[in-house]
């Protein structure tokens, strides 16, 4: 799970937005680069709710820019890249379909096994109940997984196996089962893969798009990121970014962040309002911006060093 995807990670540019479809890239960027993005997709295992969402991951242009500037990622025009679907070689097409089918068969088998296991477990429980009636309650309790158990074993075996199936970024994966079971089978499950690579091959660097255009708040964003903060879009909470001291999976945010240009007129009432808003939810209101403008320096990155920030809290008097 601590796999390292090949760098630079291609970020899909689709209709003006920056998206990630590879789970390995998502996990890696979160772990190594404090980039969280926002999950916007439906989780196929629980599709009728909005609490847990899945791939794709939408990145802010700021996040994409930061990764590109760091050399960790590149921007791929995904619509254009998919044009080559039409020119796929027959050979590649066949091989890809065979791989998918092998994976589908594997999934079918897993599924059947799981059903079998469940049946067995149910049967066992029933026998236990009969044999040891006084202890029935205890047995049932043990059979039901306690929350602690679930926490300590985050990856159940079966899940891990299914995950393996979709390590599609690894170019060696598809060929693994290619030789086995080439015959078409009624049992193979159909699969909708998360990414198109394979069958497509990674676009050459010459086709990469330029670094994303970023809003004037970028220097502040990059500054806070360089200090180890995790940043999320903040409009929902009344600010530009929310800044977390660690992974938002684990930590509450510390700051409601608003960026200003260095000489931009600040309505003092906005400072009061922001300070009030933050204090009400035990967060600081953080304003800041770069002292240097793009005219002063050579690149956007150089402005980041000239960022100054100020934290506001209600004084309680």
């Amino acid at each position: 799970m601590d796999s390292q995807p090949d760098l630079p990670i291609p970020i899909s540019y689709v209709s003006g937005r920056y998206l990630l479809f590879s789970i390995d890239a998502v996990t890696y960027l979160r772990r190594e680069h404090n980039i969280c993005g926002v999950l916007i997709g439906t989780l196929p295992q629980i599709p009728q709710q909005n609490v847990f969402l899945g791939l794709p991951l939408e990145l802010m242009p700021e996040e994409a820019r930061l990764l590109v500037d760091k050399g960790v990622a590149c921007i791929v025009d995904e619509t254009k890249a998919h044009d080559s679907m039409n020119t796929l070689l027959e050979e590649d097409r066949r091989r890809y379909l065979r791989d998918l089918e092998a994976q589908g068969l594997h999934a079918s088998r897993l599924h059947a096994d799981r059903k079998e296991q469940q049946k067995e477990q149910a049967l066992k429980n029933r026998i236990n109940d009969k044999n040891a009636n006084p202890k029935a309650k205890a047995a049932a309790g043990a059979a039901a997984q306690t929350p602690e158990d679930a926490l300590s074993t985050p990856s159940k075996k079966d899940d891990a196996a299914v995950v393996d199936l979709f390590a599609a970024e690894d170019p060696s994966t598809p060929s693994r089962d290619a030789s086995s079971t080439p015959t078409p089978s009624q049992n193979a499950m159909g699969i909708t893969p998360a990414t198109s690579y394979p069958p497509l091959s990674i676009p050459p660097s010459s086709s990469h798009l330029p670094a994303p255009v970023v809003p004037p708040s970028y220097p502040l964003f990059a500054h806070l990121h360089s200090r180890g903060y995790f940043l999320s879009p903040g409009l929902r909470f009344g600010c530009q970014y929310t800044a977390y001291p660690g992974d938002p999976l684990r930590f509450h945010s510390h700051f409601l962040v608003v960026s200003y240009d260095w000489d931009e007129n600040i309505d003092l009432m906005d400072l009061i309002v922001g300070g009030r808003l933050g204090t009400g939810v035990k967060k600081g209101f953080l304003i800041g911006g770069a002292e240097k403008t793009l005219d002063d320096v050579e690149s956007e990155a150089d402005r980041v060093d000239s960022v100054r920030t100020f934290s506001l809290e209600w004084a309680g008097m």
Partner: protein
Amino acid sequence: MADVDEDVVQTPATGQVEVDLSDETQDFRFLNHLNFLSDAASPSIPRRGEKDFEPNPTEHQADVLSASRDAMHNALSFPRLHRPKTTIIGYYAPGGYAAQAELDAQQDAQQAKQDEKTSESTQKKTPPDASKAATKPVNVSSDACVFVPNPKGQFFKTLGQADRKNRVWLLPEEALYLLERGSLDIRWPSTSDPEAVSIPMSLQAAYACFVGHGGLTLERFSVYTGLKRLGYALVRAPGWSDEVEATEDTDPASEPSPPKLHGPGLAGILGSLFKWIHDPRKTASTATGPIIGFGIHRHYMDVYRKLAIIPWYDPVTAPPSKPSDTTPPFRVVFHIYKPSTPFKKSAPPAPDFRVAVVSTRDQTTMPTLPQLGALLESTPLDPPHGEKMQRMMYMRLRHGYRNVVMAVVDQGVVSYLRIADSAFGKEKLFENKGGPQGNKRGGRGPGGPNKPKRR
């Protein structure tokens, strides 16, 4: 961010979620309670986890975080599988229905030729079928780009449009939604070689092909899919296309708009009020004074009424506007139906909600009053009615006379704001003996849940 420490969650099917869990990054560890590969278990939403204030160097914290990340990794790796027996297959048709119909015709002709050659005796079904189908009107949007030859299952009750061959055509948002939830296997068109086996479309490919097609922005899709996940039915509104022409008289939305005044009493009072304003014989003059006029005033009401000299806007008399009068993005693009509303896709009823979608990266300022006004006026009159509304003034004010929902999408995070045209001018406080009525009684009357929100 409201860190409300409440864990109360109801399933979305039963109604409102008290704490909006989607506000916060969720701990995916809690998804592990769900038995992923079993189909029988209807998964419930897990409870949220406890969070810490700041990182500390303890191993415990690192372990918990790493467990959360692993769980997230697992949950997001969950594959989209299609069981052979129940799988629904769709085909991507980049050219849309028109191109496909042309292709069909060619194939039909070829088929007919072949059939003639091989077996002249066999009666072909195709020609009579085709002629019969030709009489059936086809109502497939030109934006539709995926067709499903064998549409079975619940989804097609609310999604898609059928063509002559009983294939269902899906709009890009419909196709992407179904593929993403793992309910549809979409295939690439089999290019030049008809023998070639078609390749399933990946999630990535679907986003690349469908977002940006036919006016579907990522923000619109986020709104669409977010509401679909909660069980709402959505259809595109006439304002979907930026180049709206003033030809959308088929809009079912514009039907219920007779400006009805509620309660004969108020209507009478209003009438007399207007009469008074235009009555030149009165001694009152707002220009030279006195405002109230000479004479004997027997009642405070008369005085107050005469003091009401500031003109106010009446939403009832406002002229309706067309979507073409509005400025994108402040324009209704979706009609929304509650799960409880009987919905027929061939004849959608008047929508429960109208939604405009705004992207924070394209629209960085608040709407101007004219923009907001035009947006509201493009919606039909929806005056407060019903016994409760009659009784409770604040509820009336909150409900307003026209309303629209604005979905503000900030980089994938959607906030919904209901904007209503409140008619404060219509509420004569001085006519309420005993002060404002409604929800203040004992704090917890029948109007409890409708208490005006504290700001």
